[in-house]
């Protein structure tokens, strides 16, 4: 059976034996699991036993695309890499954008499964002419950008995923990106997994294999409709002028980060103006929004610096009381990107250290004689220490739970983390929503990324009218009967709604479609289904596609249940039930429901968790899918 939209092959690479082979992509597998992270999860289940060590040769890197990349469907650029995270021990899929997925499909592959460990520094080169493990000795020790440019200089047109010093030194809070900045990739330590395999980089050379389309005119008709909506979006010009910083200033309400007083963000307006002059838009493959950015500093202290950022250069660090100039922030972000250290984890760990140091709970001696100061030089030195595991940087590199153990702190009492990830949005700022800074952070099997519950524009804003929530929920496939018990007159059950948002998010991640609101806001389940049917020739109803998304979300849950994760790991941070001591918070400083009417206590969150598991068809204690749910999703061959 020929299936349009897919490259048609899965590549298997064993770094230990230096062997590789390509197998045809089973069309039945593709139809059932769609692609992207969906097939990744199934491949992980089929080929990898439970409880492998994250830095062992047995931990795979499973790369997946989806049927959409390689076509002109707007927003179809995603690559997913599935692995066991060194930071948390959870299994999940890191999404990245750019052109890697398109290149991989043009080379003839939908998925790549990498296991084993190379004997010496190596990079994997994939093309339509073959697969090669190449000597990376000359690249080892170089930062991510240097490695990307060196390989692109040799193989362009190509796309590269490379690790820097943090990956080489097995830093758990490492991250990288596709090429030099088209999407962060691999939170939770994927570069460390690559480093443990002596795998310096993945290079895929553009091929000539076409992505065939079953019904081109039908597909173009859907695309044209979407592009018309994009062209008339009132905030598009602002986004293209100011980038993600523009959206953060007015859109997200700062829910992604713990905010201190606004007074501590000095000269933000002036910095934003400089940002607009210094930046230009970068688009991922086939995306009309171009939310990534390149920054060129044409004057000032770092004249000539060119760097690449997703979202803003400005928001995060100055919220911790640092008073860095715009140029210093760009330099800091650039350095972190080059090292491959995740800024979010790093910044949030710093906040903990500063809080404890300044209230006298920590001494200089406790932290390896490190003199904590809110200065540029300090932050740059500490970044180096983390990337190279020097001094106390070695402890920070292992993550917040390790920091707590080292300092004899109780991670459940003294810090905010979920499943070992201290990249947690605080719902005390703007109320308990579904996504970032909200409920999804608790139940995401991978860790508190927030993205699965953020497919809907109202999820980014506090106290949006209930009608908006209902509108988007319907568009994303919420069945009528569920709408009846999830939504009240001016309230909704955030947990039960989150379950349906997760199914829709899983659809996007299975198709190879970007999960960012900038592009998802122009789409809905009906559009996704029509794209899919026109592309592949497989006629599906929207609820069937949503069912596939739910299936793939459940596969993610199953993988983590096998690892031993259960309800106890979905526990909310204790700090959420204490007042947040900041000024100018939008809803005051306690944990409230989305509309700010009711304070939420621990037992309320437990009830919400019960609701989520019930809506999902999972056991409330183990959180494993029930046999009835497995049967409903045609997963009866799956054992836990």
């Amino acid at each position: 059976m020929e299936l349009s939209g897919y490259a048609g092959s899965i590549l298997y690479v064993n770094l230990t034996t230096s062997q590789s082979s390509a197998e045809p992509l089973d069309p039945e597998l593709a139809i059932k699991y769609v692609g992207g992270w969906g097939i990744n999860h199934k491949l992980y289940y089929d080929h990898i036993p439970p409880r492998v060590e994250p830095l062992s040769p047995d931990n795979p890197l499973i790369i997946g695309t989806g049927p959409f990349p390689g076509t002109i469907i707007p927003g179809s650029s995603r690559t997913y890499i599935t692995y066991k995270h060194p930071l948390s021990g959870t299994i999940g899929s890191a999404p990245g954008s750019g052109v890697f997925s398109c290149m991989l499909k043009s080379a003839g592959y939908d998925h790549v499964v990498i296991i084993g460990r190379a004997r010496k520094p190596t990079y994997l080169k994939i093309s339509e002419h073959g697969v090669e493990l190449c000597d990376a000795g000359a690249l080892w020790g170089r930062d991510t950008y240097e490695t990307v440019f060196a390989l692109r200089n040799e193989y362009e047109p190509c796309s590269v995923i490379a690790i820097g010093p943090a990956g080489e030194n097995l830093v758990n809070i490492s991250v990288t990106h596709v090429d030099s900045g088209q999407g962060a990739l691999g939170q939770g330590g994927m570069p460390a997994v690559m480093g443990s395999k002596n795998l310096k980089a993945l290079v895929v050379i553009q091929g000539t294999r076409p992505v065939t389309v079953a019904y081109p005119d039908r597909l173009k008709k859907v695309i044209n409709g979407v592009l018309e909506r994009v062209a008339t979006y009132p905030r598009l010009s602002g986004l293209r002028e100011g980038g993600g910083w523009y959206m953060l200033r007015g859109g997200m309400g700062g829910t992604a980060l713990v905010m201190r007083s606004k007074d501590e963000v000095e000269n933000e307006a002036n910095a934003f103006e400089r940002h607009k002059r210094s930046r230009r838009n970068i688009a991922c493959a086939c995306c009309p929004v171009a939310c990534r950015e390149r920054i060129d500093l044409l004057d000032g202290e770092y004249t000539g610096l060119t760097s690449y950022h997703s979202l803003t250069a400005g928001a995060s660090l100055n919220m911790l009381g640092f008073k860095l100039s715009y140029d210093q922030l760009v330099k800091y972000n650039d350095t972190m990107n080059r090292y491959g250290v995740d800024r979010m984890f790093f910044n949030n760990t710093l906040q903990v250290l500063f809080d404890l140091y300044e209230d006298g709970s920590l001494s200089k001696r406790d932290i390896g004689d490190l003199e904590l100061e809110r200065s540029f030089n300090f932050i740059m030195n500490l970044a180096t220490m983390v990337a190279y595991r020097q001094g106390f940087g070695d402890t920070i590199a292992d993550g917040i739970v390790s920091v707590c153990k080292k300092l004899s702190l109780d991670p459940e009492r003294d810090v905010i983390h979920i499943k070992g990830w201290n990249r947690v949005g605080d719902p005390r700022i703007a109320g308990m929503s579904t996504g970032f800074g909200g409920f999804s952070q608790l139940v995401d099997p991978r860790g508190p990324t927030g993205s699965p519950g953020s497919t809907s524009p109202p999820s980014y804003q506090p106290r949006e009218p209930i009608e908006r929530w209902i509108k988007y929920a319907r568009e994303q496939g919420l069945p009528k009967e569920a709408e009846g018990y999830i939504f009240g007159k001016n309230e909704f059950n955030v947990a039960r709604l989150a379950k349906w948002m997760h199914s829709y998010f899983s659809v996007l991640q299975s198709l190879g479609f970007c999960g960012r609101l900038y592009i998802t806001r122009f789409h809905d389940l009906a559009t996704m289904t029509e794209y899919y049917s026109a592309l592949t020739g497989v006629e599906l109803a929207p609820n069937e596609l949503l069912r596939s998304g739910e299936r793939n979300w459940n596969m993610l849950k199953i993988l983590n249940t096998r690892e031993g994760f259960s309800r106890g790991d979905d526990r909310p941070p204790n700090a959420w039930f204490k007042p947040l001591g900041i000024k100018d918070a939008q809803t005051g400083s306690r944990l409230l429901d989305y509309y700010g009417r009711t304070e939420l206590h621990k037992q309320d969150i437990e009830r919400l968790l019960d609701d989520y598991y019930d809506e999902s068809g999972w056991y409330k204690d183990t959180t494993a899918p029930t046999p009835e749910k497995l049967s409903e999703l045609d997963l009866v061959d799956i054992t836990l």
Partner: protein
Amino acid sequence: MPAKALVTIRRLVGQDHEFDISFSTECDHCGICVKYCFYGALKRERKSKSRWN
């Protein structure tokens, strides 16, 4: 559709996110690439009475 595209977009190394755009000699001037470029990077101009460029 991408399988039939005759426009070549070459990313310049060292000038990341700078591109050189050219067309294969087999380009039939259908204009689809112009229509689907979201950023107006391509323009269609009539070169002569009988030929678009």
